[in-house]
C-alpha cells in the first residue's frame, strides 16, 4: 500500500480547462454550501416562527394544521423530500408553471429546490424550538399582555416572541449547524456544493485523501465560525435570571 500524497494538486489547473484551479473548485463549493444554507436558514426562521406560534394559539384548527405540518416534515427523510421538491412538484403544478420551471437553467432549478427543501425541513425543527420557548414562558406574561389591552397578535409580537427567541438561541445554534451539514444532501440532485466538489476532485485527480481532508477541514471551519458567532449572539441576548445560559 503506497499512496502518493500530493498536496500541490490544489494549485493545479483543472483538466476541464475552465481556467480554475482545484482549490478554486473547493472554494466555489464552499460558497455554494454557505449560500444555500444561509438562504434556507432565513426561510426556516420565518416559517419556523409562524408555525411555532400557530402551535400555541387558542384556535384548534390552526393548531391542528401546524401540528400536521411539523409531523409531515419531521417524519419523511430529507432525501425523499428533496427528490419530491426537485422531481415531483414541477410535474404536479399546473402545466404552464411546470414548464416554466423546467425551462430554467438546471443549476437554478437545483438551487431553488435545495433552498425550499432545506428551509422547510429545518422550519419544522425550528418551530418545535419556538413552541418550546413560548411554552416555557409563564402563562402570566400572556395574560398581563392581554390585560394591558394588547391584541393576541400584538402580545405575540411584542411580548412572547422576543422573550422566546432569546431563550432558544442555544438549540437554534445546533439547528443552524445542522442546516450546513444537511446541505450536503443536495449533492444528490447535482448541486455543486462542498461535498460534490470534493467528489469531483477525486474523479479528476485520483487524490481521494487530500480531497477528503480538505472538505472535512472546510466543514470544521464552518462549524467553528457558526459556533463563534452564535456564542456571541447568545451572550448579547442572554436573559438575566435564567438557568443554563
Amino acid at each position, binding site marked *: 500500500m503506497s499512496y502518493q500524497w500530493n498536496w500541490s494538486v490544489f494549485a493545479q489547473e483543472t483538466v476541464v480547462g475552465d481556467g480554475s484551479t482545484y482549490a478554486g473548485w473547493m472554494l466555489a463549493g464552499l460558497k455554494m454550501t454557505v449560500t444555500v444554507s444561509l438562504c434556507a436558514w432565513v426561510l426556516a426562521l420565518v416559517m419556523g416562527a409562524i408555525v411555532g406560534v400557530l402551535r400555541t394559539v387558542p384556535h384548534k384548527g390552526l393548531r391542528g394544521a401546524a401540528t400536521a405540518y411539523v409531523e409531515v416534515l419531521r*417524519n419523511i427523510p430529507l*432525501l425523499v423530500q428533496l427528490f*419530491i421538491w426537485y*422531481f415531483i412538484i414541477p410535474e404536479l403544478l399546473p402545466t404552464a408553471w411546470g414548464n416554466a420551471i423546467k425551462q430554467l437553467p438546471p443549476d437554478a432549478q437545483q438551487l431553488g429546490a435545495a433552498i425550499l427543501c432545506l428551509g422547510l425541513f429545518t422550519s419544522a425543527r425550528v418551530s418545535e424550538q419556538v413552541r418550546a420557548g413560548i411554552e416555557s414562558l409563564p402563562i402570566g406574561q400572556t395574560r398581563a399582555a392581554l390585560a394591558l389591552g394588547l391584541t393576541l397578535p400584538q402580545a405575540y409580537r411584542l411580548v412572547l416572541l422576543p422573550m422566546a427567541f432569546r431563550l432558544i438561541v442555544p438549540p437554534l445554534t445546533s439547528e443552524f449547524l445542522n442546516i450546513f*451539514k444537511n446541505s*450536503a444532501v443536495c449533492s*444528490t440532485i447535482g448541486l455543486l456544493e462542498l*461535498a460534490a466538489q470534493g467528489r469531483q476532485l477525486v474523479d479528476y485527480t485520483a487524490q*481521494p485523501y487530500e480531497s477528503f481532508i480538505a472538505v472535512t477541514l472546510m466543514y470544521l471551519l464552518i462549524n467553528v465560525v457558526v459556533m463563534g458567532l452564535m456564542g456571541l449572539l447568545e451572550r448579547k441576548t442572554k436573559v438575566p435570571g435564567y438557568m443554563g445560559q
Partner: protein
Amino acid sequence: MAYEFDWSSIPGSIPFLMEGLGVSLKITACALVVGMVWGTVLAMMRLSPVAPLRWFGTLYVNLFRSVPLVMVLLWFFLLIPQLLQQVFSLSPATDVRLTSAMVGFALFESAYYAEIIRAGIQSVPKGQLAAATALGLSRLQAMRLVILPQALRNMVPLLLTQAIVLFQDTSLVYVSALADFFGAAYKVGDRDGRLVELLLFAGAVYFVLCFALSRLVQLLQKPRVQH
C-alpha cells in the same frame, strides 16, 4: 392538474421494495447496536479521568458531529472498499457496499449516541458514584452496575427518537447505489417512468412508519412524567 397518476407499477414491485426495506432495517439495526455499544465506550472515555482517553473521545465525537453524514457515507463508499480489498486481498468483484455502508453508519451514529449517553450518565446524581465507590466497587464496576443501568433508563425516549432519525437517514445510502427502501423505490420508478408515484409512495411509507414509532415513544414517555 395535468399530471395523470398511474399507481399500477407499485403492486408488482412490492417484493423488491420489501427487500429494500429489509436492507434499510438491517443497516438501522446494525448502526443501533454498534452505535449504542461504541457510543457508551466513547461517552465513558469523554468522562474519564484519564486525559488521553478524554481527548480521544472528545476529538472523535466532535469530528463526526461536524461533518455531514452524506460525506461520510460517500467516503466510506469510495475509500473503504479499496482498503478492504487491499487488506484482505478480496477480488474487486466482491460487493462490500452493504458492509461499508454499515460500518460508516455505525461509526457516524456512535458519535451521536455518545452524546446522548453522556447526558444520561451526567443526569445520575454524583452521590451514586460516591456511594458505589464507598462500597468498594471499582470505577468500571460502579459504571456497569450502578450508573449505566440508571442512565440508560433515563435515556430510553431519546435513544428511540434517535433511532427514528437513524432509520430516516438510512435513505442516504442512495449515494452508494445500494438498493435500500428508497433506492429500490427510485429504481422501480426510474424503470417504469413512474418516479412521481414511487417517490410519493416511498414518502408515505416512511411517514407512516416513523410517525407510528414516534407516537410509541411518546406513550413510553408518559408514565415517566408522573412520578
